[in-house]
């Protein structure tokens, strides 16, 4: 009897085993530290509990101002990114698969390019001695000086440029899920092209718009690179404050309180979002609720939309050419321009890196590879590069192993539980990274892992797991499970099935996941800023230190190298996708 009971529990639990390492890992190195932030922020000096840190936060208007600035900037960036990204996503969603793949590369290169490289490029372009400034001075015979940074507009340019690819990528799956037949149906029912767009496509795409807005907003909340390098002190954001409180005043509980405020704000935004739109719209799952489209389909708003569509269509009909091709080419032109704007600014690092002079001047003076030589031969850069590569590879290896187990487990859980576990596994991607970093800093400090490669790998696996799980879970969703049945009947045992059928078929996705995990680690500054101390710096950390101290052409050489690496990685990734 007892044996039976045990064995039936075992049969039920056994399929879940492969996911347990990933779940356990995230419990310890994600859930625990983030929870600890909340708890520790309530501890006061004498070992008791209280709101002392929050009171201090509230008492000083400077902190409130930083919070206000952070939210204002994040909202602005989210709104601008959506508006700029929407037409691009619309165009991509109407392309053939092959064509979309080609266009997506132009989004993925800037998406995966390090924020540090992108921000460095904007410094080179926008500062008073930068490329645009020089150009303006030259054109106006020295009467006009253009210095766009440091300023709020510099911050906004840098952030929107950095996040438009994220917005497009988030909106795209929802838009692709909208059947092209629906717009056609609307047109046979009497709507014009614009009318069909406004009454059918736009409302159906809104969940994607909200999802993109949410992700951009939350990512921006945790930004510190862009405001620190492109902004004035007036644009100080909360992540900068947290970093300086920890690294300069060592006031951990107060930093905890700041992080907790950020965390609570994030969670509130999520709850509000879930109420309004439904969290499932993130990541291309079809939205269970679409409150917004419900709103639009009833009453006044609907009538206004229809009226507006009819008006637009009448205007469009006055344009003599076939309206379809005309609006199509305008859209293509816009998307091409946007792709150029996303890719080109970053390329400024290339000419600067092969200049001969030590000053960052434009146009470049003379040709020389001395900065590459400086990069390669400097023991500091060398050590940083090797450490980044090692940590990246370890992260990818551990991340893919644990992530594959977790993805397998997800397929064996029933819908509701599977969704909850999936949300937990991707949570590190959705919280501002700075919160994860601060929490880990507490925990790793106690474990004596700060300043070690092991500490870095732990932190990076937390960040990389969501990418791995998303990639592999999608691959397993497409996986034809009857192949397993077929192999089973043909005589293959569980291990043989895995070796001969599942793994070979998942190999391209596993390679993609590996690459994504590697890039996540290789690119990370937030964890590195806390966890890699003293001599043991990583490449991004070394770049950051140099940029804060004094920008120099070696940085351009490093940036160019990183740009090449990311481009190669993106092309490699897209070739994996094509194989399928």
């Amino acid at each position, binding site marked *: 009897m007892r044996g039976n009971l045990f064995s039936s529990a075992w049969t039920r639990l056994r399929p879940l085993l492969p996911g347990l390492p990933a779940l356990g890992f995230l419990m310890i190195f994600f859930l625990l530290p983030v929870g600890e932030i909340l708890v520790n922020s309530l501890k006061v000096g004498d070992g008791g509990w209280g709101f002392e840190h929050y009171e201090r936060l509230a008492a000083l208007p400077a902190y409130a101002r930083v919070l206000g600035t952070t939210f204002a900037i994040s909202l602005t960036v989210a709104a601008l990114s959506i508006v700029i990204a929407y037409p691009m996503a619309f165009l991509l969603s109407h392309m053939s698969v092959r064509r979309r793949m080609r266009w997506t590369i132009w989004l993925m290169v800037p998406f995966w390019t390090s924020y540090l490289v992108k921000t460095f490029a904007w410094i080179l372009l926008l500062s008073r001695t930068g490329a645009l400034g020089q150009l303006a001075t030259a054109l106006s015979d020295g009467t006009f000086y253009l210095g766009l940074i440091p300023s709020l507009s510099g911050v906004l340019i840098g952030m929107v440029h950095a996040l438009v690819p994220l917005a497009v990528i988030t909106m795209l799956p929802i838009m692709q899920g909208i059947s092209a037949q629906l717009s056609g149906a609307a047109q046979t029912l009497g709507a014009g092209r614009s009318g069909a767009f406004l009454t059918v496509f736009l409302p159906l795409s809104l969940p994607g718009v909200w999802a993109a807005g949410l992700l951009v907003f939350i990512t921006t909340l945790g930004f510190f690179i862009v405001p620190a390098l492109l902004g004035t002190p007036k644009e100080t954001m909360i992540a900068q404050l947290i970093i300086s409180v920890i690294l300069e005043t060592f006031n951990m509980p107060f930093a905890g309180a700041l992080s907790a405020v950020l965390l609570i704000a994030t969670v509130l935004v999520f709850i509000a979002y879930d109420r309004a739109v439904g969290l499932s719209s993130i990541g291309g799952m079809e939205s269970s609720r679409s409150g917004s489209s419900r709103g639009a389909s009833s009453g006044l708003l609907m009538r206004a939309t229809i009226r507006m569509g009819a008006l637009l269509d009448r205007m469009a009909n006055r344009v003599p050419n076939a309206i379809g091709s005309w609006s199509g080419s305008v859209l293509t032109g816009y998307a091409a321009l946007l792709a150029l704007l996303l890719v080109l600014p970053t390329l400024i690092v290339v000419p600067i890196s092969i200049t001969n002079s030590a000053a960052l001047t434009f146009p470049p003076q003379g040709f020389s590879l001395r900065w590459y030589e400086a990069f390669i031969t400097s023991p500091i850069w060398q050590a940083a590069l090797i450490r980044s590569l090692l940590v990246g590879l370890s992260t990818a290896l551990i991340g893919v192993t644990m992530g594959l187990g977790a993805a397998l487990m997800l397929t064996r859980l029933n819908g509701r539980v599977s969704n909850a576990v999936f949300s937990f596994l991707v949570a590190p991607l959705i919280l501002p990274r700075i919160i994860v970093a601060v929490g880990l800093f507490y925990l790793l400090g106690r474990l004596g892992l700060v300043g070690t490669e092991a500490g870095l790998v732990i932190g990076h696996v937390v960040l990389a797991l969501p990418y791995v799980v998303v990639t592999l879970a999608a691959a397993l969703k497409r996986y034809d499970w009857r192949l397993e049945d077929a*192999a089973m*009947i043909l005589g293959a045992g569980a291990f043989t099935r895995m070796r001969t059928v599942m793994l070979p078929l998942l190999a391209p996705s596993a390679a993609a996941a590996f690459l994504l995990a590697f890039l996540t680690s290789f690119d990370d500054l937030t964890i590195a800023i806390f966890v890699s101390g003293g001599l043991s710096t990583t490449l991004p950390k070394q770049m950051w230190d140099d940029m804060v101290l004094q920008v120099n052409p070696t940085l351009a050489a490093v940036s160019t190298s990183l740009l090449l690496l990311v481009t190669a990685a993106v092309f490699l990734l897209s070739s994996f996708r094509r194989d399928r």
Partner: protein
Amino acid sequence: MGHWLNMQAKLSTKGLTKKYGAVVALEPTDIEVKKGELLTLLGPSGSGKTTLLQMVAGLVQPSGGKILYDGKDGTHLPPGKRGIGMVFQSYALFPHMSVKDNVAYPMRMRKTLAGEIDREVDRALAMVQMQHLAQRMPRELSGGQQQRVALARCFVYRPEIILLDEPLGALDKNLREHMQMEIRRLHRELGGTFIYVTHDQDEALTLSDRICLMNEARVEQIGTPAEMYHTPKSRFAASFLGHSNLLTGNVHVDANGSPSLAWAGSCLPLPPGGATAHSATLMVRPESISLVSPESGFLRGRITEVVFHGSDLKVLVDIQGGQNIVVRAPSESPAARLNDTVGVRWSPARSVLLTQ
């Protein structure tokens, strides 16, 4: 007659049942499959035929009952140890392996020697005329070719029982008919025991030694195609296999003691044999009916539709009050003209009285 003298059944189920929560996918079922026969499991979707097949394959665990292979209980054996092969609905070919590697897969799983693998794979591919495409990948093949590879992969290791789960469902009509002939040929040449799931009655009639008709999670009737066609046991069996006129009414016994069925205001003669139930259905196949003069018919009515079908005509006769009788008449039949008033009659021996 004398079933008990026969050899043991190749496969049999005893009270085999499957429940998903409160939903019964298969009521307790006993069937016997004889060695070397081709049995089709025929029925509409949701009738339990695929569930039954998957339990025989070992892909679905039964909620109760037993499955015997050669008389031995194999209910809980892993799929690979049941001596079965299976052809899947959309083939389930491994997309990352060539045709040859797909077919060699079960041989490799059985640790066959390399030379023998090559020989057996060639033999299996030759049986389905696919040797020339051995190096192709599955995605480079047409649907019919993929189907042949799936068959070869199933036959190559000579399983004694072969399960086919609607294997021709994805093919177009001509190819499907061609492949049906291929499967008949393979069944003859291999001499294995085939269990074939389909929802297509023509396919079942074409292929089967016996048909197991299923409906609402249970077996409705088992028999040879001729038995099923000529002596269905229920209204469902009569209407699912072939076209039939089902005339439901009350059975009366007249003064002489001969029974008849009251239908549409007429008394229809019944086939020989006892008519016990009060209410019953008389089944008459359209081809058993002839068109006669109005006076000499069991029933009379007006022709409302004449459809040319090549070898014969389909004639709709409106009896009265919207009741229709379908008649198949020879193409050159002069009697069938639209709006003519005609009589219909049949040999009572060729009708079947159904009480279920």
